[in-house]
């Protein structure tokens, strides 16, 4: 069995726009990404500022300007005189939003509600004159916008409900987390990426599967189950993903809600100052620079999770990328910009793998590269990513490793190129492990399933394969 070809767009994509759900005439005519995105944004803001609905849901594919939308909606709501609370999922996301808001509108009074832990927020916030920080919601009362994490908001009690809320990364928020904060606002804009990792629970939650308010489901699932009439919007353009990646990610992970890249082929380029030395890592880097994708395939072998060879290969690719003086050209800046360590990320499935890669990088003298699991890389953006394939070297393909969102996150963090390091034999492994999760009554089946998405990505990657025996 292989992936159905329909879900795999051709590598050359300028004409192969995913067409499902869109009238083909609209697609064929000259597509102006900026205008399409602006139309979507206008419709979203109209529904958000209008009084017709208690909630608005916005689905945003990777890098489609979700944060920009949140910032814009927040400013417009504040300008309309509606006290606004913003709920994000992590402190890093909260701080990032605060900084973006202050960049756009330095005079806007913003409150950063934070925890009582030491160093609860990014020190950069101290530089912003109109940002007030406090661990007590009451001290931030009256500010136009108050921002915090869902976890912190859940402990806020005894305050007047806010007129409006923006829930960021709502697909990664668990239903029970929304339950804890939903009493704080009257109406809300929910923004998120349905293709990324679903929230999860470390204990079994099967007994509630199929209930509309299953506490382990995502906040949006519960929200829409109870309020199916809410308007749902979609951002149609990914500004992050290059033209080489958007069709694959769209086809493999968003088959029914396609999107396309904001840039065309040739708008972005990745080049190296130093020529290839012919080694595996160098060849795969050249392939990735050329095509946007590279698969460094090591010999098939069953390994522990922290496969030393694969880990070292990941570290070597990063080292060579830096050594060869990678330079990225894009629409962002007039000239080429060096790809420095902070523009590179390494993604893994497990924390111990991330730790092993960090150690391997340190051994090679590389610092400053973000190395993390898919869960923690969600919402972040880099020029080049190096991914340790979740199924590499495994004897089995569990639901965890097959999860669609995990692969989607790992395959959609980059602006220029993505290099995947993997042991051979994953396609066979997939065929030996079709998904066997029990079907739960009342649970909407998610498409595509991880098995199919994995095959789609793998078959695309195989066209950019560099075999290497370390």
């Amino acid at each position, binding site marked *: 069995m292989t992936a159905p070809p329909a879900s795999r767009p051709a590598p050359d994509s300028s004409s192969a726009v995913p067409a499902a759900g869109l009238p083909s005439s609209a697609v064929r005519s000259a597509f102006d990404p900026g205008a399409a995105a602006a139309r979507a944004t206008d419709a979203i803001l109209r529904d958000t500022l209008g009084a017709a609905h*208690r*909630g608005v849901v916005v689905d945003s594919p990777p890098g489609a300007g979700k944060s920009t939308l949140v910032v814009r909606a927040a400013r417009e709501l504040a300008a309309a005189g509606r006290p606004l609370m913003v709920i994000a999922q992590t402190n890093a996301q909260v701080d990032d939003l605060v900084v973006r808001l202050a960049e756009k509108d330095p005079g806007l009074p913003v409150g950063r509600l934070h925890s009582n832990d030491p160093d609860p927020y990014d020190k950069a916030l101290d530089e912003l004159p109109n940002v007030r920080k406090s661990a007590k919601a009451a001290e931030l009362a009256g500010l136009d916008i108050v921002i915090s994490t869902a*976890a912190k908001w*859940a*402990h806020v*009690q005894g305050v007047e409900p806010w007129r409006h809320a923006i829930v960021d990364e709502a697909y990664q928020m668990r*239903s*029970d987390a*929304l*339950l*804890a904060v*939903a*009493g704080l606002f009257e109406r809300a804009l929910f923004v998120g990426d349905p293709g990324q990792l679903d929230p999860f*629970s*470390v*204990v*079994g*939650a099967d*007994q*509630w599967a199929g*209930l*509309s*308010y*299953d*506490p*382990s489901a995502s*906040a949006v699932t*519960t*929200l829409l*189950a*109870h*309020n199916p009439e809410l308007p749902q919007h979609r951002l149609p353009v990914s500004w992050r993903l290059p033209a080489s990646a958007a069709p694959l990610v769209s086809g493999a992970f968003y088959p029914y809600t396609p999107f396309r890249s904001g840039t065309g082929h040739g708008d972005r380029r990745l080049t190296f100052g130093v020529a290839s030395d012919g080694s595996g890592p160098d060849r795969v880097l050249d392939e990735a620079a050329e095509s946007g994708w590279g698969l460094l395939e090591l010999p098939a072998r069953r390994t*522990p999770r922290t496969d030393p060879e694969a880990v070292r290969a990941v570290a070597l690719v990063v080292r060579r990328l830096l050594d060869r003086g990678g330079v990225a050209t894009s629409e962002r800046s007039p000239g080429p910009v060096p790809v420095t360590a902070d523009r590179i990320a390494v993604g893994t499935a497990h*924390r*111990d793998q991330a*730790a092993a890669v*960090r*150690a391997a990088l*340190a*051994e090679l003298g590389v*610092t400053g590269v973000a190395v993390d699991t898919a869960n923690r890389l969600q919402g972040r953006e880099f020029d080049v990513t190096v991914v340790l394939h979740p199924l590499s070297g495994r004897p089995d393909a569990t639901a965890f490793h097959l999860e669609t969102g995990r692969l989607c996150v790992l395959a959609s963090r980059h602006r220029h190129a993505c290099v995947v390091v993997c042991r051979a034999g994953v396609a066979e492994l997939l065929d030996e492990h079709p998904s066997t999760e029990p079907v739960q009554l009342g649970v909407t089946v998610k498409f595509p399933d991880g098995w199919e998405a994995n095959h789609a990505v793998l078959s695309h990657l195989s066209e950019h394969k560099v075999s290497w025996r370390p």
Partner: protein
Amino acid sequence: MSLISTLARLEAVASGRARPLATVRHRRISERPLVLVPLTTAGEAGAPLGALVGTDRDAPRLLTVAQPRDRDLRFAFLGELAEAVLPYIDAYTDVIEPAERNETDPETGKRVKVEVELCVDAPQLVVPSRPGIDFVRLLGRSMRFRRTAEEDPETPYPAPPRVPLLGRWLTHYGERARVPGSSLLLATTDLLNRHWATGQSGLEDQHLGALLAWIDPPGTLSGAEAALLAELERDRDGQLACPPAGPATDPAFDNRLLAPAIERYDRARQELGAAEDGADAEERLARLTAAERHIRALLLGVMRPTWDAVWHGLDLLRQLPEGARVEERWTRDRWSFTGHRDRVRAGEPPQPRRDDAVTAAQKLASRETALAQLAAAEALDDPLVLAGHRLSGEAFVGEVTEVVMAYSEGKRPSPRPLITVRTDDRPHLGERTKVFRSLDGKPQSAEFVRYGDGPADEDEAGTGTGTGTGTGTGTDEDGTLVLRLTDRMGRSKEPAPGSVPEKGDRISWTLFEHDQRGGPKLPDPEETPWTHGGPPVREGTAEAGPDAPRQAPDPVTEEDFL
């Protein structure tokens, strides 16, 4: 599967015996558990076939259903089960001790301490396997909404007295079994699998006979040989020497022995009904009784090996000393038991069919907390479990080689001593990673400063924001690392005596927390927000109206007529 359990399994394969995964017992085994070995009827969901139940390993009480499709017999079985189980539960409800509980005063809204009763011990149910727990849950669900003639004289099919009450208790136990680390309702296979690793697959580990064969093989057989026999050995009639631990039965038993016996019983019953005179009836009754006795003997024959296996498993587990923190978890089980006792006594209705949104969220949160607590407690109780965490970089054990006093900045400097630790472990430490040790049973935290034992950079030590020059290298040669102790040293400038490690101390540090902060307070069910469908409509309450249907039937769809 963690690296250490993979290793234990490999060792088990190599040695032919199960290998220990724990050096102490991590669950409470009651002095007087009630063992329940249930059987269910093939192809008839929720129709019990029989059970062995009791607290005396030599004298189980045998309950059987001669014709499982006969609802009267089924009810009689449940009535007998209630008579067997409820006196055992009742024996614990009145042995109490005074205790205190925090409650919110409904008038002032303040947290106040309330004097309450706490049962000194709690009844413990042990079943052979995990499907047994599911069956307990199923029995609970099928019984708790039944009405007895006493409760409702109009009810067309009244349940025997106390059956609904047993249903509520089994439901409570079934729910409690989902809380990680709880010991009210235990599956023997789960208990054994927690404490030993065998050389077979996880699926095979669900077979109680095969599992015991690995842990305690009879005679000179190796674990693998004994397990194979337990799985496959059949007598001349094709019957398994080690019948399944239930509740499902072996098809060979169903087809060759049970089905003919039930047929014989059915025939005898029919004939009895058709009896014409007294003498005839008496003879036919004798035949019926014989047929029933035959079924009872058959069922006893397939349940008794499981019964003995459960007690054998309990014996093995009792040989392990109990972990230090098991008592604490058992106390929570006692609270759970007492709480349900109080709800029953207060006349509350049975547990609803489905949890409402708030209850579901609360249960999930408390189970996640319990799981984190359990993982930490097992690691602190058991060096072998800790070794697993050390191997995966989540903990380390090291000797303190140096303690340098330092203070935090600010108006009132607090002690922040720097502890140098030498360890052979390779913990996954990053800049300012928090680590914890147990100090008099309470967690004390520290943060990672840097690798190496060079002289402390004074600035860095003082500000607490040092970049940790050595961090991230992770490959320190001599295995020394510097930690900054951050709490539990008292309020004064000098740390409280005994709160700072001394040179030469050997200390276990974990990268995970020992305690779990409780989750946020959720709204009352009556204040369920619009995102979650608003407040639930309670069955049979005033809002639902007295005539409201108990539950709307599923709408008829086209598929119903396919």
